[in-house]
């Protein structure tokens, strides 16, 4: 057994070799570009605003990363996000329930849908891309039927301050605090616990994981609960900030979440990915969007640009992983 591996890499080399580092450099370069192109970009107001807008997507994207690493996808998160919002809005306005109780029921309803996703995949063994494509349509239908396709307006309350409108120390918008808190929690789960290793193993080599005694189906089912919980939290933040709920909200959010995850270095084949990378991937998407807005480009051009960023990220990822082999 020859020692054909380069040994004793320095700490610097290790950091430079990390994928997350590459994503960080990309995020900084893009920020530098827009800072030069438009002076408004690098203002405290804009940066906080950018992060606040990122919160909803980031929370879902990081959860999606856990699921993709385990080898599955959840295309229904945008619809779960809508159902949580609609159920909460319905109970708070039409049923006159207290907003706390309404939100709790809304999130639990969302978790129920996540549980259904997991159950569907466990019992039928259908590919999760197809399975959640169909539940996405069903769940979206539920949101439309429950709301009779009407939006809800909510009353301002302490609850809404806590989830959407308050500012920590008078400067940091509270959605950012939720984003970071959720990010730290998922970081611990995926990268620091035994469960996290099981998530990686399930997506990397499912058979090997099963033979090692890991209940991979259980792991994936928990993954679907995590994405549903993220969709619920995100929906609460959104309705707290906007004071409104629409049954069509979150359309396309699932694809944005997958895109952010991929830009952050997550492999679509499973077994590779990181929470920090996805956080940075979400930032890159927001930077590109905000920067282009500040430069005065119209919305269609923005989408095209985000598309280009995704393609570029995937090409770089593939290059990196083949080079190392």
């Amino acid at each position, binding site marked *: 057994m020859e020692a054909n591996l380069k040994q004793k890499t320095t700490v610097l080399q290790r950091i430079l070799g990390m994928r997350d580092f590459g994503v960080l450099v990309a995020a900084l370069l893009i920020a530098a570009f827009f800072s030069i192109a438009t002076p408004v970009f690098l203002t405290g107001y804009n940066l906080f605003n950018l992060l606040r807008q990122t919160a909803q997507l980031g929370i879902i994207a990081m959860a999606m990363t856990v699921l993709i690493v385990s080898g599955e996808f959840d295309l229904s998160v945008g619809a779960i996000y809508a159902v949580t919002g609609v159920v909460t809005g319905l109970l708070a306005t039409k049923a006159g329930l207290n907003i706390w109780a309404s939100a709790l029921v809304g999130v639990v309803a969302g978790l129920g849908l996540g549980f259904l996703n997991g159950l569907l995949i466990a019992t039928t063994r259908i590919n999760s891309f197809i399975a959640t494509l169909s539940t996405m349509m069903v769940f979206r239908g539920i949101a439309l039927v429950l709301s009779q396709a009407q939006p809800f307006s909510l009353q301002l309350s302490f609850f809404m301050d806590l989830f959407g409108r308050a500012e920590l120390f008078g400067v940091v918008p509270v959605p950012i605090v939720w984003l970071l808190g959720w990010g730290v929690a998922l970081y*611990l789960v995926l990268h620091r616990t*035994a469960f996290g*290793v099981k998530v990686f193993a399930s997506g990397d080599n499912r058979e090997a994981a099963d033979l090692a005694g890991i209940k991979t189906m259980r792991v994936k089912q928990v993954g679907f609960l995590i994405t549903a919980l993220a969709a619920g939290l995100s929906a609460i933040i959104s309705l707290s900030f906007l004071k409104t709920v629409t049954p069509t909200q979150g359309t396309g959010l699932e694809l944005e979440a997958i895109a952010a995850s991929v830009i952050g270095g997550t492999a679509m084949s499973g077994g590779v990915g990181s929470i920090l990378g996805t956080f940075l991937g979400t930032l890159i998407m927001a930077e590109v969007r905000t920067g282009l807005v500040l430069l005065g480009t119209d919305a269609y051009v923005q989408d095209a640009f985000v598309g280009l960023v995704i393609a570029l990220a995937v090409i770089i990822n593939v290059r990196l992983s083949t080079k190392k082999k």
Partner: protein
Amino acid sequence: MAEPMLQLRGLTKRFGGLTAVDRVDLEVYPGEVVGLLGDNGAGKSTLIKMVSGVYHPDGGQIFFQGREIRLGSPMDALELGIETLYQDLALAENLNVYANIFLGRERTKPFLGLIRVLDHANMHEESEKVLKRLEIEIPSLKSQIKHLSGGQRQAVAIGRSIYWNAKLLIMDEPTAALGVQEQRKVLDLVRVLASQNIPIIVISHQLYDIFSVTDRLVIMRRGRKVAERRTKDTTPDEVVGLIIGSEEVAQQPAGGPPAD
């Protein structure tokens, strides 16, 4: 006479209309290396997968250390100390060496009194010890499996199966994917383990391997056990004949524990 570590009685497994394993009896005694031979599709892997909890038998019984056992999942077998090295290397490519050795049985430590987090230092240290015990060189236990050679991977897989103080080790074609040097290394490992009194079942198509490490041979053909021989009482020619079925099938009961 010592009690068998593992005893199979009339073990049977069907896949649809095909009887992959047909009423097989087998005993493995402490400290013994048993070679399981047979042509492609003879039912060797299926037989051992019933012992490792992957498949549920359609008939027959499994006794381990004298007690009948029923295995619901691979974890059940692992908990009893039945460790298996599978034909298709069962490792997670993107995880590192020690994460693979501890796969499914990760070491953790408390963190802030709230949750339990991975204890990397402990897993690294323990993995180093077990690989040393096997005299295996792997430059860095932090390298991902995909960067290792075939022999190194097999070494990791073996290290993993013996770390847990295996009471029975099953190896399904442990040398199949390896170069000559690496094959020799793995055979040395089998000898080291046998000398530590761990009973081993080895499946292999390489007669040289089988003759150099086993005490006893069991030959299967089309799902059935067709013969059993003490390794020192037979020849490669006879064994080949038994495998392909050209020789008269003499159900000569040459089994039993190795005389020491």
